[in-house]
């Protein structure tokens, strides 16, 4: 299966080893690096889950079963979070433009999720903050 991100809801950018994905509809953002960034880039290029597994099996040393399971698990998480949807009509990319990683070992790809944006939106405008903010001392138990 191939996948896509809904451009109206999902902004994403990769810079060097790191990728950031923003779901502007739910107010959450996600960041990851290394294998996760490569996996996301491959998905955005239109590679199928099988093509991605084949790529990682060639580029990383590791158990083929683990690679297959990890890739499918992460894709499942991305779908569950509304970042990806199936796009069977997409065609296979001519070649994946992923960085060379000579001698790399496989490790389970992971990403961080940040969901506090919605709270910030609710606070806006004028960023209502407590009168007890800086420059007052923090509560005694703060540290």
């Amino acid at each position, binding site marked *: 299966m191939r996948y896509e991100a809904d451009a109206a809801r999902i*902004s994403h*950018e990769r810079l060097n080893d*790191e990728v950031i994905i923003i779901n502007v509809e739910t107010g959450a953002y996600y960041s990851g690096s290394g294998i996760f960034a490569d996996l996301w880039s491959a998905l955005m290029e239109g590679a199928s889950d099988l093509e991605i597994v084949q790529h990682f099996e060639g580029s990383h040393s590791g158990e083929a079963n683990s690679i297959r399971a990890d890739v499918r698990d992460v894709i499942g998480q991305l779908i569950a979070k509304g970042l990806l949807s199936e796009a069977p009509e997409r065609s296979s990319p001519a070649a994946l433009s992923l960085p060379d990683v000579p001698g790399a070992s496989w490790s389970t790809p992971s990403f*961080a999720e940040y969901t506090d944006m919605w709270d910030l939106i609710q606070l*806006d405008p*004028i*960023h209502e903050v407590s009168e007890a903010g800086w420059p007052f*001392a923090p509560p005694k138990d*703060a540290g």
Partner: protein
Amino acid sequence: MKDSVSFLSAVKRQAEQVCASRHARREIAIGTATIRLAYCASESSRSLDAFPLKEAGPASWSLCAWDGVSAGRLPPPRPWGDTAHEPLGIVKQFTNVRQRCAYDLHTQSLIVADLEARSAFIWYPDIAALPTWAHASPFRIPISWALAEQKLQMVHGAAVAHGGGAALLCGAGGSGKSTTALAAALGGFGYLGDDYCAIDSAGLEVHMVYRTAKVLPSTLRLLPGLRTWIVNADRMNEEKGIIFLGPEHVKLVTSAPLKCLLLPRLAADGVPRIVAASRADAIHALLPSTIGGLMGGTASTPGHILRLASRLPAFHLELGPDMDRVLELIGTTLEGRP
């Protein structure tokens, strides 16, 4: 699509009619972006005073703002439902590569942009009734769209300059950005803004968007000299105090090279210090509140913030009551010796 085009056309027609009557006009410059503002309100407003004092060249964008207090100035009926703007404000069904429609819940304003024509329109129910903060950071959303077209990103952050370089102070509301920026400005640093600035992540520059500042009572206790500059001092029990800063107050700087990102936070022991911050810290200090405050930003927003966090050193600026020490730390960090 047809509804979308006809709504945009109707808004543009009304804007042209309104602007045919008496209106205030001003060209503003933010970095390389120049925007022609036409402002049609029932009474004069301070909104136009919020922008940088900088000579503007030919406008690359136009923005028309008006309100509905006079007859015939209601916007065309919206062709979408009550909740179509949720959650961030963008009306997705009427937003595409050619136009953007949004509703700002906080000012109850309708925002429509014709991206191809580089023009935007913003309608308020009653401009005179807007809270003071709205006049201190006017037209934030359409201006952020105009900046994006010039490869600039509006960010939620304060900025101060010293020795030929500037620091961008990033963090959520209440982290100390405004107070630090004002204290620095009073201490002789250049002032580029306390809440929203524009950044060029390729050229590593920061630009002033508004020459205003927000003041909490707690800031006033620390910086009592600000009191006489506040334009709404009589309403500070209801809203934040607002200052429109001029060259008679502080050294205003419209653009400066960016040298570092500073992430203010309260020092647990009250002793100011600088602590190295990770790239992830910097992204988290800058991204959520920028995205949240700009209705999701634009497609280029994540790239700008990633580049900024990757190319600039970031530090936690741990704050305490010793303001002189805080300013000394900012100065030495900008000089490259934190």
